[in-house]
């Protein structure tokens, strides 16, 4: 057994490139897979923690009906009546010219576990909650604000407590004890009481204790981060799986080739009396060792990838969905394990065919290299048949099936089918080229290229997969950006958004009307109605305002706004329209308190990122039907030349509007653009990585083919072609094959993109992205592919160009 191992291992020593191909293939596959899993896992696991404090929305809370009404006495009275409530004070501080959100909490009463993670390695509750206090912030917040751990930073509100790191905390937030917040922000009342969801509620109602001062704000499931961010994770996972497949192609190619080249050794071992079973066991043992080694390397690399990408992913999630992910990666045993299992499983899949061959190999079979068998034509036809079947399945899944599963089945079938079809299509293309080719050398080159397809096929298939994935995901992300930014620009057309406290609404309305620098005040109202068994927001907007000109629709009747103003028309969000099956002109019954309000669907609009449905009507008409509906905030369009900063300062001074109640549109837009740039950083890096894997596959195949092809090259050299010329021809051939593959990848990539935006996205999230096409991206990708192919082919070509003539001569002596 040991001798057998030694005999098999000697092959790898003789062919270090091949060994490298196997290890690198598995390593890259595992790296990308586990890196992406780590990223996804990290993001998901941090939602719960991040949502804890930041997202007070996820807990039921009591808020004052007017500022100052929630007093300490009410809080204590509620506690003493058995209400498990915890006080919160919120505000903003400016540190080093940057504004940050300051949250004051009482760690002693905060609902169970909401802050405990924050104290890991930080100050104890005692040091946190008593003067001189300490201030918790996530590492990225500390960096962003230029804080220093253990030091007291100064702010516009005076010196802050000593900074301490709290990794579990959401970024962008400073958390201090409520006593510190009270002192810093100069407050005497509380902003909210969070209700512990796990504590039993006492018999005495909160209203009996607090009187009229408070209102209950129920937990808002709209901020269901996991649902919203699923789309992003789905894309990342798809990327991970595809990269892993590409890696498997490399491994398969390398393992298959190694087996073929070791047929002689294997046969000798069998002839020496080794049983087929023992031989298989030895081969299997070898494979497991290699897989574990490469898998471990891949995990290390995967960690590196995840660590490098996490800040960008975190920023993307934060920007797109408000999901906060701390930018620190923790090592989770489960993904180490999963990564190794993937590597092992992948290696077994890649080598399964080879192992089966070793098992069933007749002792006395002659050592004929597989690539040389004459059945290429037949096998290509078979492959084409299977590929075609897969494409038919892809089509059927879309036409007949429904739901997310059908979308994924279709996508997988499409990829498999297209990949299987690649070698036959390439062979066909070369046959066609051969018919028009003139001159013996060109004809030989084309014939040789056709011959090589069986050897390079797998690598080219890997390249096709990588390229089409890149095009697909790139197109989707670009489409998303184009759509989203345009939509954001159109949708948020006011310059400043203000959400004053309920009792200040009337005063704010007058204040805004009186200002010269406010050109238009857009007030909206909001209520809820049950439609199709689901609670849906009904939003009233002034039909006679600039909404008429600015509001973007996906589809609308010409007289949409007139009908809305008349109280006869409603606009419906895309998600709701899909759910209720509403088309333009369909009637819609809104259950108003005084009886159903029948409206016509006059427009459908995009409402990305909002999984709940929304219906829009005229504001006046809505308040007529739902008397007493509360204001949902104001949009202010400023007069030309007016400064939004000045308006915001005045609003803050006059109404004490907090940071959540006051939004500067320009800043918001800048922020969202920055977010997309970061999304791109992630996509671009993944693109490069998958292409690198495909390049490695190409290189591995070319390098291993080079020796074998000497028998073809030698006669040409003997006929007078220089080695240099032969090398250039070889390189040109590789480039041509890669380019051809890249061209074929474009339609496949577009099909993938279409499936992602038009099928998967709609099924998963209820809205469809318009597909934008970016030929510039393809050109860049083509150039990159060409570069990768040339790089992969360079070394084998160089070796051919410099090969000692004696070696070429030897070919004839050894002619089999």
């Amino acid at each position, binding site marked *: 057994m040991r001798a057998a191992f030694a005999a098999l291992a000697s092959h790898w020593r003789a062919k270090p490139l091949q060994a490298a191909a196997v290890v690198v293939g598995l390593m890259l596959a595992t790296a990308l897979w586990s890196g992406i899993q780590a990223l996804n896992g990290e993001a998901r696991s941090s939602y719960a923690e991040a949502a804890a404090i930041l997202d007070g929305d996820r807990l039921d809370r009591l808020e004052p009906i007017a500022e100052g009404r929630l007093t300490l006495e009410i809080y204590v009275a509620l506690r003493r009546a058995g209400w498990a409530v915890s006080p919160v004070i919120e505000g903003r501080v400016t540190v080093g010219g940057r504004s940050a959100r300051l949250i004051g909490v*009482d760690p002693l009463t905060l609902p169970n576990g909401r802050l405990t993670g924050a104290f890991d390695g930080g100050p104890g509750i005692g040091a946190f909650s008593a003067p001189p206090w300490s201030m918790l912030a996530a590492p990225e917040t500390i960096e962003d604000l230029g804080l220093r751990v253990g030091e007291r930073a100064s702010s516009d509100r005076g010196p802050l407590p000593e900074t301490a790191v709290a990794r579990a905390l959401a970024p962008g937030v400073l958390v201090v004890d409520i006593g510190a917040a009270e002192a810093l922000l100069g407050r005497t009342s509380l902003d909210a009481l969070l209700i512990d969801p796990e504590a039993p509620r006492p018999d005495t109602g909160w209203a009996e204790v607090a009187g009229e001062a408070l209102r209950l704000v129920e937990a808002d499931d709209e901020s269901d981060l996991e649902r919203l961010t699923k789309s992003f994770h789905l894309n990342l996972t798809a990327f991970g799986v595809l990269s892993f497949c590409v890696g498997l192609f490399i491994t398969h190619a390398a393992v298959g080739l190694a087996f073929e080249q070791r047929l002689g050794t294997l046969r000798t071992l069998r002839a020496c009396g080794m049983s087929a079973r023992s031989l298989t066991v030895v081969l299997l043992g070898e494979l497991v060792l290699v897989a574990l080694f490469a898998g471990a390397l891949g995990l290390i690399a995967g960690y590196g990838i995840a660590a490098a990408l996490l800040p960008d992913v975190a920023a993307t999630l934060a920007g797109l969905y408000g999901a906060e992910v701390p930018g620190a990666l923790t090592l989770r045993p489960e993904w180490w394990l999963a990564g190794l299992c993937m590597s092992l499983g992948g290696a077994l899949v890649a080598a399964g065919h080879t192992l089966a061959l070793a098992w069933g190999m007749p002792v006395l079979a002659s050592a004929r290299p597989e690539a040389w068998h004459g059945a290429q034509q037949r096998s290509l036809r078979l492959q084409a048949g299977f590929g075609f079947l897969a494409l038919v399945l892809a089509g059927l899944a879309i036409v007949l099936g429904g739901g997310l599963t059908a979308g994924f089945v279709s996508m997988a079938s499409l990829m498999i089918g297209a990949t299987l079809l690649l070698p036959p299509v390439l062979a066909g293309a070369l046959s066609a080229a051969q018919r028009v080719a003139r001159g013996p050398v060109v004809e030989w080159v084309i014939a040789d290229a056709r011959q090589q397809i069986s050897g390079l096929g797998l690598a080219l298939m890997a390249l096709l997969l990588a390229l089409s994935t890149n095009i697909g995901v790139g197109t989707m992300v670009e489409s998303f950006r184009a759509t989203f930014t345009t939509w954001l620009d159109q949708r948020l057309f006011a310059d400043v958004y203000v959400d004053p406290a309920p009792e200040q609404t009337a005063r704010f309305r007058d204040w805004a009307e009186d200002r010269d620098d406010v050109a238009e005040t857009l007030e909206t109202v909001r209520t809820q109605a049950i439609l199709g068994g689901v609670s849906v927001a009904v939003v009233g907007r002034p039909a006679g305002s600039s909404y008429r000109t600015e509001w973007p629709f996906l589809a609308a009747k010409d007289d949409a706004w007139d009908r809305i103003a008349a109280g006869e028309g409603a606009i419906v969000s895309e998600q709701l329209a899909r759910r209720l099956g509403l088309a333009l002109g369909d009637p819609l019954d809104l259950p108003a308190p005084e009886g159903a309000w029948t409206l016509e669907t006059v427009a459908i609009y995009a409402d990305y990122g909002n999984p709940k449905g929304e219906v829009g009507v005229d504001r006046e008409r809505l308040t007529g039907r739902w008397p007493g509906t509360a204001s949902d905030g104001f949009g202010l369009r400023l007069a030309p030349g007016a400064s939004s900063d000045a308006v915001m300062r005045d609003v803050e001074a006059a109404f004490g509007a907090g940071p959540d109640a006051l939004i500067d549109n320009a800043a918001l837009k800048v922020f969202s653009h920055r977010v997309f740039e970061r999304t791109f950083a992630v996509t671009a890096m993944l693109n490069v990585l998958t292409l690198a894997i495909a390049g490695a596959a190409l290189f591995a195949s070319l390098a291993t083919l080079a020796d074998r092809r000497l028998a073809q090259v030698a006669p040409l050299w003997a006929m007078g072609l220089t080695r240099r010329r032969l090398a250039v021809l070889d390189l040109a051939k590789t480039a041509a094959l890669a380019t051809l593959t890249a061209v074929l990848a474009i339609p496949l990539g577009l099909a993938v993109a279409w499936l992602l935006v038009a099928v998967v996205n709609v099924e998963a999230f209820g809205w469809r992205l318009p597909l934008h096409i970016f030929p510039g991206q393809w050109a860049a990708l083509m150039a990159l592919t060409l570069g990768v192919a040339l790089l992969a082919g360079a070394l084998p070509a160089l070796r051919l160009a410099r090969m000692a003539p004696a070696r070429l001569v030897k070919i004839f002596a050894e002619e089999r």
Partner: protein
Amino acid sequence: MIRALFLALVLAVPAAAQQADVSDGLGMMASDPGSGYHEVLPETPIAFPADHGPHPGFRIEWWYITANLEDEAGEALGIQWTLFRFATRPGGEMAAGWATPQIWMGHAAVTTADIHLAAERFARGGIGQAGAVAEPFRAWIDEWRMESLGTAYAPLRLTSSGDGFSYDLELTEEGPWVLQGERGYSVKSERGQASHYTSQPYFKVRGEVEIGTRALQVSGRAWMDREWSSQPLAEGQTGWDWFSLHLPKGEKLMLYRLRDERGGDYLTGNWITAPGQSERLAPGTVAMEPIRWVDVAGLEMPVAWQVEIPARGLSIRTEPLNAQAWNALSTSYWEGPVRFDGTHRGVGYLEMTGY
């Protein structure tokens, strides 16, 4: 009894300092004169009613009630009601509002032969959410209370509730308050760590305990400890095993063992006669040995004990009502009713910490 010292340290000291303390020894913490906290002195007398109220100048303090009860069917059960106060820094008795250094913690539990339920509350002093007043006496945290029903200290009403349980009890005094240690000065180690310690072991109890949906009419007796100190455990002391026992004929026994990681455990207690005369049991006159260990929350705990006080002719074995009386709270410890027989028979409470 030094129970809350450990809790106070865990909560009040920054994590880094906590680690240093574990290695350097708990005794080095802020226990020296001049630390800013009030000092425990043997000559300071205990005076009621003032000492029913809080002592914010001391670092730690507690109101600790355990009761051995029976329902109408004669089934035994026990309850715990504890209010801890600790200061996170000295001199803070003046600060009011959120800025106070006073932190209050409540623990409550109900134990039957097969159920043990515990709950915990935290509150800042200075805002009214928790506190204590000497006269008329009341102590509270959230909706849990212990308060005089009239102008006199007793009778008291004691209420609490947690997930799956609640109780509402009335406590009447049947004997005097007794001073533990030497006239209320209780030494905790040979190196002089001490506390002010007084008890009321003569409470008679009636009332209602609700467990799940079952409402039980109960009666029995309770034991209250009042203790305050500024000095934590001595260096090397890792935890304690503490008994309060109702002996026959109205006698009471309090004893504890402070475990020392370097050997040389500190065993002492007080023997209280029926009329309320308290006499300290000097170290060396008491023996306590575990006789049965049980797995509790993943720890090996000595739930049954052999106790010997030869000078008093006492030799008893204690058995827990429920061996799993584990308070799985922010600071976890074993606290539950016990019964004992041998030369004496009766019931009481056992507390074990630091395992």
